[in-house]
């Protein structure tokens, strides 16, 4: 039987997650698949952004408990994956995030008010995707992985230098769309990086009821695509792996699947009750792997940061939190008639008629 198929690089990822800095802030001796630890300046920037992100998540969660937002899914505990991956993007690259990835949007430079517009209930997407090279955060699971693949395919066809990065969760990896995206991306060799944040839960469903695989990165081999498993709480590892994968993509070598092992420290959203499905001890156990603590220890050990530096960052994070409060204190102006404004490019009589109905109702209620 002679079948022509590429056989290069056919292997499963190493069992041990790739990691540079361990939970105690020391360098590991884990093999790192040829990746190199980022320099202290880069790491300090990543540290700073992780601190911002954590403060942001805490502030938004707090405001949500106060009822200022309709709902909020926090990525607390996942700062390294969110920040490490997003920071690796070039400005011209595109990000395809999910509802969980406000931290990535923040890192991408989207203003806090625009990030939170959707969760406050103002409008489905609060920012201009073209301005931030960032797709609206997708709620239907795994659907965005295909958008990222298609976008990258168009970039490739145009000969543009852009790559795409998309986040998906351990739960989302079970959806058919995730499989189709892996396959299309690898057949078409698009510059796409799939960052699978394995935070151990899909709402209440634990990983072991989601997959029987040793690791989700094992999926990659079945598509002829490189797969990596990284310590998702080590921002150095995430940044290095994603940077290399984006580079691969831009060089025409196709997509990469990167599984970031991490943990969702908070409830799924504010309306969730995690005591129904996980033990407090498990959450505690994961605290020791905290992505910020370990990097702080490491950067102190190299002398890249000191007390003053840490304080300055904390103060800046406080300012960010204040800007979040400010933004959420300002009510957005939402014109009810915008209901009809953006559905179609070509105007429709039906919608014009219905708009008149609403106008009349508003007038009758003294609202317009």
């Amino acid at each position: 039987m002679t079948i022509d198929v590429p056989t290069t690089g056919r292997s499963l990822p190493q069992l041990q997650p790739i990691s540079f800095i361990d939970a105690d802030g020391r360098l590991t001796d884990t093999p790192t698949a040829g990746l190199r630890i980022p320099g202290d300046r880069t790491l300090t920037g990543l540290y700073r952004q992780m601190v911002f992100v954590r403060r942001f998540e805490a502030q938004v969660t707090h405001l949500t408990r106060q009822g200022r937002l309709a709902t909020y899914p926090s990525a607390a505990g996942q700062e390294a994956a969110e920040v490490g991956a997003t920071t690796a993007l070039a400005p011209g690259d595109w990000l395809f995030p999910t509802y969980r990835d406000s931290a990535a949007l923040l890192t991408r430079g989207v203003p806090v008010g625009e990030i939170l517009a959707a969760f406050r209930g103002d409008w489905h997407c609060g920012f201009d995707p073209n301005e931030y090279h960032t797709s609206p955060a997708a709620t239907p699971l795994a659907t965005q992985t295909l958008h990222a693949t298609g976008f990258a395919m168009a970039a490739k066809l145009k000969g543009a230098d852009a790559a795409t990065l998309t986040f998906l969760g351990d739960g989302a990896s079970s959806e058919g769309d995730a499989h189709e995206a892996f396959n299309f991306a690898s057949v078409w060799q698009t510059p796409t990086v799939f960052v699978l944040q394995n935070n151990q839960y899909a709402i209440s469903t634990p990983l072991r009821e989601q997959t029987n695989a040793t690791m989700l990165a094992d999926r990659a081999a079945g598509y002829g695509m490189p797969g990596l498993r990284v310590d998702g709480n080590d921002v150095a590892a995430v940044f290095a792996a994603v940077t290399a994968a984006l580079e691969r993509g831009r060089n025409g070598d196709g997509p990469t699947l990167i599984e970031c092992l991490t943990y969702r420290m908070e409830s799924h959203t504010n309306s969730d009750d995690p005591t129904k499905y996980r033990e407090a001890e498990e959450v505690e156990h994961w605290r020791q792997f905290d992505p910020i603590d370990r990097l702080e220890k490491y950067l102190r050990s190299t002398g890249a940061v000191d007390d003053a530096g840490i304080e300055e960052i904390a103060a800046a994070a406080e300012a960010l939190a204040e800007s979040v409060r400010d933004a959420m204190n300002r009510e957005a102006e939402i014109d009810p008639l915008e209901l009809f404004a953006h559905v179609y490019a070509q105007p429709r009589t039906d919608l014009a008629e219905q708009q008149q109905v609403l106008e009349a109702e508003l007038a009758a209620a003294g609202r317009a």
Partner: protein
Amino acid sequence: MSVEVDTSTRTPSAPAAEAVTMAKALNRALRDSLAEDDTVLIFGEDVGRLGGVFRVTEGLRAEFGSTRVWDSPLAESGIIGTAIGMAMNGMRPVVEMQFDAYAYPAFEQIVSHVAKMRNRTKGRVALPITIRIPYAGDIGGVEHHSDSSEAYWTSTPGLTVVTPSNPADAYALLRESIASDDPVVFMEPKSRYWMKETVSLPVATGPMHRAQVLREGTDATLLAYGPTVRTALDSAEAGAEHGLSVEVIDLRTLSPFDDETVSASVRKTSRAAIIHEAARFGGYGAEVAARLTERNFTHLSAPILRITGFDVPYPSPKLEEYFLPTVERVLDALESWDWEL
């Protein structure tokens, strides 16, 4: 205003009446079905340990064990597709699509298999599957959490589509749906989950497929289902203040349509409107208006009106109030009729 449903005659062993929510009534229906019939299985996303994001399956895993009630991997086509296989092997799966927009990944399995297997096999393979779908809005949900997808299912031959508007019906209709040999899309109005009614569960179950006159009237008929039944009842009340005697019918089963009950009402009143949250264009109301007109044309003194959401995607929470059909919108419609009272 709370819905008054006379449950006295439906109660077999007269258990104590208590205030129960629709979520609790549904939970009880699932529990009783599991207890009575070993082939009933419940699985889906987060329906096990968590008891579902709306807590409709709460406590069932603990009571019946994880071989009767369990959490599946996260994939809706997978849930429906495996439910089909289980049903072929003698089971009665009751599966949950977490929100109705999340039934869409399972669309092919529902439309091409669930709806068609019985016909394909000349009745040799029945698929007694109940697909529970929390639907509609008015809960401040973010995008994709408030769709009203009933028109997709009602326009698919082979499916039975049911939706309760109150706890007693929720119990009875869910029991009947699970017992039915036809696959049932069971649509649960999210905004009514926490609505309470004083009722003695279990209520007796009746024949499926019947609409119910909830309020009698002579001037006009308001047709509603699920979340808009409340709007219809409130509107009838408000109409009464304007001197209008408005009949309200809860359709309960969307497919098939209970022509007997509804046409009798429309012939009596000569005017009718259907109220739903979904967009108007191609919505379920179109079928209602078309068939009532076909069957009662000479009895109508006005066209059947459709009081619905606008023809736009379901909006973000802050715009819901402008989108959803309100009592005011219903009253405007009532007023638009040429009354010769």
